[in-house]
Each structure stands twice: as C-alpha cells, then as structure tokens.
C-alpha cells in the first residue's frame, strides 16, 4: 500500500511541477495546490500507513498506528487551504488590475 501511495505522490508531484512551469496564473495556483497534496501523500507514505490499531482507543492491541503524521498532514492541509484561497484572490485581483494572467507579461518593465 505504501508503494501505491508513493506512486500517487509522484504523479501528483509531476502534474504539479508541470502546471507550475506553465504560464497561466490559474494553472500555476492549481499546480501549487496539487504539489502540496503530493507532499501530504509523501508525508503519509514515508511514515507508515497502518501498522496496528487506532491510537489512544483502548488497550487491546500491542501495535499502534503513529498518529503524528496524520496530525501534521491535517495542519498542513489547513495551511495550504488558506494559501490557495489567498492566491486565488490575488490572481483575480491581478487579472482585474493588470488585465492579464500570463506570467510572461508580468515580468515588469525595466524602465518603470
């Protein structure tokens, strides 16, 4: 199962990187979002998925699943949600103000 999740993480990284390297602003923001999801998958996969019973729920099992990676992922998801929301608003404002969402045209004018 870990292998499968790792492959999914790799696919997400690939798509995310491809989108980040494109020119459209919305594509880049989606790419960033996918990239962070890849990070979450990786965090889950490298720290083990399910090694035993649920943590802190009874004393029946000897082996417990480590709850910490899931807590980290939850925190990270919340942060990346806020960042995606912010960058979407930012992208919209930029489109309204500057009239373009093409990064090629957002380079800046050397004479300004």
């Amino acid at each position: 199962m870990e292998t499968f999740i790792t492959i999914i993480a790799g696919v997400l990284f690939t798509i995310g990187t491809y989108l980040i390297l494109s020119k459209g602003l919305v594509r880049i923001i989606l790419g960033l979002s996918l990239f962070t999801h890849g990070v979450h998958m990786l965090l889950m996969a490298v720290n083990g998925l399910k090694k035993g019973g649920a943590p802190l729920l009874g004393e029946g099992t000897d082996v417990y699943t480590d709850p910490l990676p899931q807590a980290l992922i939850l925190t990270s998801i919340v942060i990346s949600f806020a960042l995606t929301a912010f960058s979407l608003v930012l992208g919209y404002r930029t489109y309204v103000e500057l009239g373009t969402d093409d990064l090629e045209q957002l380079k800046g004018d050397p004479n300004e």
Partner: protein
Amino acid sequence: MNNFVILPILLPLLSGILMFFIRRQIRLQEALAVAGLLSTIIASLLMVSTISDNGIQILNMGGWEAPFGISLVADMLAGLLVATASVVTLICVLYAFYSTNQDRKKFYIYPLIMFLLCGVNGSFLTGDIFNLFVFFEVMLISSYALISLGGGKIQLRETIKYVITNIIASSMFVIAIAYLYSITGTLNMAHLSERVALAGQDGLITTVSLLFLIVFGLKAGLLLFFWLPGSYSAPPAAISALFAALLTKVGIYAIMRMFTLIFYHQSELTHTILVWMSALTMILGAVGAIAYTDIRRILAYNVIVSVGFIVFGVAVASEASLNGAVFYLIHDMLAKALVFILGGAIISIAGTDKLRDMPGLIRFRPTLGWLFFLSALALAGVPPLSGFVGKVMILQGGVEQRYYVMAAVGLITSLLVLYSAMKIFINSFWGETLLSEGEEKSSGKGYLLPGSILAALIIGLGIGAEPVMEYVRQAVEVMLNPTLYIEAVLPQTDI
C-alpha cells in the same frame, strides 16, 4: 517551566486580534500597537535577563513533557533576536504612522504587522521543528497580505512571484520534515539533535540536511535570492523596512539553529557548501548593488550581501566567527531598518527613486543627509558603529580557520557596499538643488524620530559592544555545545 516564554508570541497576537474590532478608530489602533509592542519589548528584555541569570528557559505547552509535546525554548540566541525584532517592529510602526496612507491603515496594516511579529518571535522561540514550519507560515501569510496591501500594479505583480516561491519552499520544508521524522521518529529539536548524534549523521540524514539548507536558503535569500529584490522594493517604505529587518533574518536563524544544533557532524560537506553559498551570495549581491541605479533595488541587494556575510560566519563555525555572526545579525536588523526608512524618506521627498533624477537635498534636509551618511557607514562596518565589531570577529574567525579567499571576498564586498550606499548619498544629497523649498513631493516627515532612535541604537551598540558581547557569548556557548540545549529541554531521566 516558565510561562514568561510565551509572552513575546502572545502579546502581539492578542493586540493584533483586538485591533480587528476597532478598524475605523485608527488613533486607537496606533495606541494599541505601541502599547502591545512596548509590552512585548519589556517582556523580551525581562526574558533576556532571566536567561542570563538562570540559563535556558523552557515552556512545555499543555504540560506535555519535552519529546512528546511542543516545547518553547528560550535560549540566549532566541532571546536576543526576539528582543531586537520587537524593538525594530516598534520603530517601523512609528514610521508607518506618518508614511502610510489612510486606506492602508483602515485595511488592517497594524494587525498584520502584529501577526508578522507573532510569527517571527514564534519562529525564534519554538523548540519543535514542525512548529517552526507553522510559525514560518504565520509570518509568511502576514507578509503576503502586507506586501500586496494597497493593490498597486507593481505590488500585485511582485506579490505573485513572492507567494509562488514561498509556497514551493514551504512544501519542500514539509517534505524535509517528513523524511527527517521517518528517519529519526521525533520532531523535537533537542531530541533530534540527540538521536542524530547517537545514530551518526549518515548519507541519508546529510541529504535531508541539504534539503533543509535549500528551504532556508530560499527563505533567507542565501544564493537563492532571485525573488528578493523585486518583492522588497514593491511595498511602501515602512513595510519593506520591516521585511528587510526581519524576514530574511528568520531564515538565517533557522540555518544557525539547524547547523549548530542538529546537523553539525558532517561539517566538511555541509559547512563547505554553506561557505561557498555565502561567498557567491556576497559577490552576486554586491554586483547587484553596484549595477542598479534606483534606491530601492540598491538597498534590496544590500540585504543580500549581509545575508551572505552572516552565513559565512555561521559556516566557519568557530567561536570567534559565531560571536561575530550573532552580533552582526543583531546589528543588521537595526541597520537595515534604518537604511530602508531613510531610503523611503528620500524617495517620498524627491518623488522618484531614480538616482539620476535626484535633486540635491542636503540644503533643505541636512538631518536626513547626515543620518543617511551615518547609516551608510554602519552598513560598511566603519568603527565606532556596530557593524565594525561583528565584521572584525567574523573575519578573524574566517582567517583563523584558513578561509583566506572567502575573508577577502567579505572585505571587498564591504567596500562595494560602502560604494553603493555612498552612490545614493552623493546623488541624492549633493549636486544642484533641483527642488526649491516647499516644492518637495511630500514633506517626508516622520523619518526623524524612528531614524534617530535607530541611529542612537547603532552607535550605542557599537560603543557599548562589550556588555552586549557578554550576552552574545552566552548565546554562542549554547551553539557550540548542543548538550547544554539538550539537557535544558529533555528531562534528565531516561530517553
């Protein structure tokens, strides 16, 4: 256990939250900002004196013992940086009173500055590596909002690049934490240090440490500084002074912490890379500072040069150079705030940031001129100003450890920094007076109080270097002996 430790995080956060409820009463917001920051400064100074008397102060959040819960660790390095950051923020807020327009003030500039300080202080104080990431994000999301606040075309354009770069860097931070946790099974920095020392720093851990180096290099502007000049020159002067003084310094602090506390076993690899990165940063930053002819860009490239210089002190990692690096870090927070505030005042008076269009301001603005001259000398490290002491110690450490070429690079780039700052001074203050009195684009008032406070601090830090060095030595003692940090954080029984 000492509940005092959380105050420098809590006080800015609480005063920032309170300000949301009084959005339209700007005077009240300003009073609250000053009160909140003054109390933060008092709390952090008290903390520094407590650390000096009783050693490292620990607060285990929620009462969970060290490796299991999140602990806040106030050692002398963190204490000194928290105190300096709070002072610099107060001064930048004082400048923001006069220099920012009413719209920005109505749209939460003060609460955002408070949250920024909350994130910065939290990053300095935390003893947990994931918590460091969270405080980095608190700091960064406030900075995203601050940099785009006002919504000018240039600001929006630069914010996008800044945000994209930082989101990618933060993702890599989480990746590095994931690998480190899967290798060592802990997130507490003291526990990490102990486990890495116990297991030996093998190739895998060194690779992870280099991933951390890339992340913090991006945040600090160490070699990976391509985003910095654009985004630091976009926002208004008070905000960019705050950024230049605080944001890159947090990255430098993280590099210091990581490579003196946890990843110090393979120094012939990691510290060699650090030395090379810092030398390249100094050279490229100096080239940028000479090449550009607008004030904002020159100042932004000066930030990069000093990042390289401090990290060179960290990379050499001898006692003298670390003393110098900590001292220079404190000096640089003050000096960069001063020079950005004065640069902002020049730009707002002249109405342009192009050096060739600058009027000779010295006739109408002698105080501003001489303050800027002083700040230029401070940047270059001319005695008796505070930059001198730090530079001497870093170079002394570098020469002792036989980094002759790099020390020479450090000296030459200081000269180039002096040249670039003098270029601003000569062009904007000397020459024909193009503007007659009363014709200035704005009065530019408001720089005088924050500028004089900072100048006095820089002179005081330079002349009174010896008493401050006492504290710096205590900070470096912990950096040189990670066991002191570990013993303070982890309970003494058995791990």
